[in-house]
């Protein structure tokens, strides 16, 4: 018997009112869209994607800073996902600078070891990724290596979303791999049903069921539906390395105002690896792209198809906003799977 079918039935039975659940993970969105999970859910159960795409929530000012470095002759190393993100004038892909796509930060260090030029790793990602960068900085990379930290952490953003109530959220599906590293104890502060979910369609359905169960019981706790990888404490070694190199900072997210404590800044002791210090970078405020509603998509109050440009002016080849660029962006994912159905 297919477990999915059984769980689906249970979900139908338990959804007895209008409910909105938010997930904050591009990989969850991929699974949901790829397996058309929304179409098997009852109509009154809505799943929205929040700010779960690290590339999408990186403010334009940080992309522009990378573009400026590239035009000053610095070699930029970063993930392929960032290449087409539009800055104020063009993208890393179109800027004509020396841009290297790398699998991870350790490969960016290898680039630096082979050149005398300055190499800056544009470092995006949540708590899944930040420890890999911390561990690398602790291996004493060469002097011509530094990072532009665009890291963000999830709990402060959830706190913001819950406190301002713009998107009415009845439950959160927590990002499985962020929680693999960080555990889920930090999420116990939130008085809302939550579940840590895996990435297979059945695992996501199970996560939804656990949320519904909490709602039926009238309780708010964090259930763990991904115990193979996630424990309450997470990977303590990775957390220690992360906090050794980074401290929490107040930063803006694309589509959000400054969220207290939601960024990761390189500590003074490692400032020689901080591109912001090294090159005296100042971030300029974002200029909103006319008509792009990425900001609303990221806050969970609009969906990609609400945008007039979706699939017309804005496509993965001609992206207007970052949500159409990243493999984790809601617009790109919807474009990929909806255009096939």
């Amino acid at each position, binding site marked *: 018997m297919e477990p999915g079918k059984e769980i689906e039935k249970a979900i139908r039975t338990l959804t007895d009112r209008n409910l909105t659940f938010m997930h904050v993970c591009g990989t969850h969105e991929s699974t949901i869209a790829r397996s058309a999970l929304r179409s098997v859910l009852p109509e009154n159960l809505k799943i929205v994607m929040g700010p779960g795409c690290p590339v999408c929530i990186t403010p334009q000012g940080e992309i522009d800073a990378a573009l400026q470095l590239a035009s000053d002759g610095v070699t930029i190393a970063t993930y392929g996902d960032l290449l087409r993100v539009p800055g104020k004038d063009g993208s890393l892909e179109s800027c004509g600078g020396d841009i290297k796509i790398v699998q991870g930060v350790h490969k960016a260090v290898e680039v630096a070891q082979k050149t005398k030029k300055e190499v800056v790793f544009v470092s995006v990602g949540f708590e899944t990724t930040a420890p890999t960068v911390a561990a690398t900085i602790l291996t004493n990379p060469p002097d011509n290596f530094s990072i532009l930290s665009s890291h963000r952490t999830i709990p402060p953003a959830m706190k913001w979303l819950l406190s301002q109530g713009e998107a009415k959220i009845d439950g959160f599906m927590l990002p499985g791999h962020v929680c693999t590293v960080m555990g889920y104890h930090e999420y116990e502060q939130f008085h809302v049903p939550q579940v840590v979910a895996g990435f*297979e369609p059945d695992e996501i359905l199970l996560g939804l069921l656990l949320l519904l*169960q909490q709602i039926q019981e009238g309780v708010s706790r964090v259930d763990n539906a991904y115990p193979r990888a996630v424990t309450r404490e997470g990977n303590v070694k990775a957390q220690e390395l992360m906090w050794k190199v980074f401290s929490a900072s107040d930063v803006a997210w694309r589509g959000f105002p400054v969220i207290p404590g939601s960024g990761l800044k390189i500590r003074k002791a490692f400032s020689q690896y901080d591109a912001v210090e090294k090159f005296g970078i100042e971030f300029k405020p974002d200029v909103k792209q006319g008509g792009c509603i990425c900001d609303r998509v990221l806050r969970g109050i609009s969906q990609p198809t609400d945008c007039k440009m979706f699939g017309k002016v804005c496509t993965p080849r001609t992206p207007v906003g970052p949500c159409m660029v990243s493999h984790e962006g809601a617009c790109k994912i919807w474009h990929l799977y909806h255009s096939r159905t």
Partner: protein
Amino acid sequence: MCIAIPAEVKEIKEGNIGVVDYGELTQEVRLDLVDVKVGDFVLVHVGFAIQRLSREEGLETLEIFREVWKAMDESDERKVQVT
């Protein structure tokens, strides 16, 4: 970007480097963030093992579901008895 893929540790080399097997592909990954031995399963993200996978906790989704559902049935029965 938070995508992470399970793999088995096949070999541990000097300098926190491990060779892992994804099933059809082997690759060198960094082991800075985990304490592992050959034969362990890890989750790999951007070229780093980010956690050791626990085999004991590897309950199938279906098993978890059955447990959840059973527990709910029982609590429903209790509700019925109370009223």
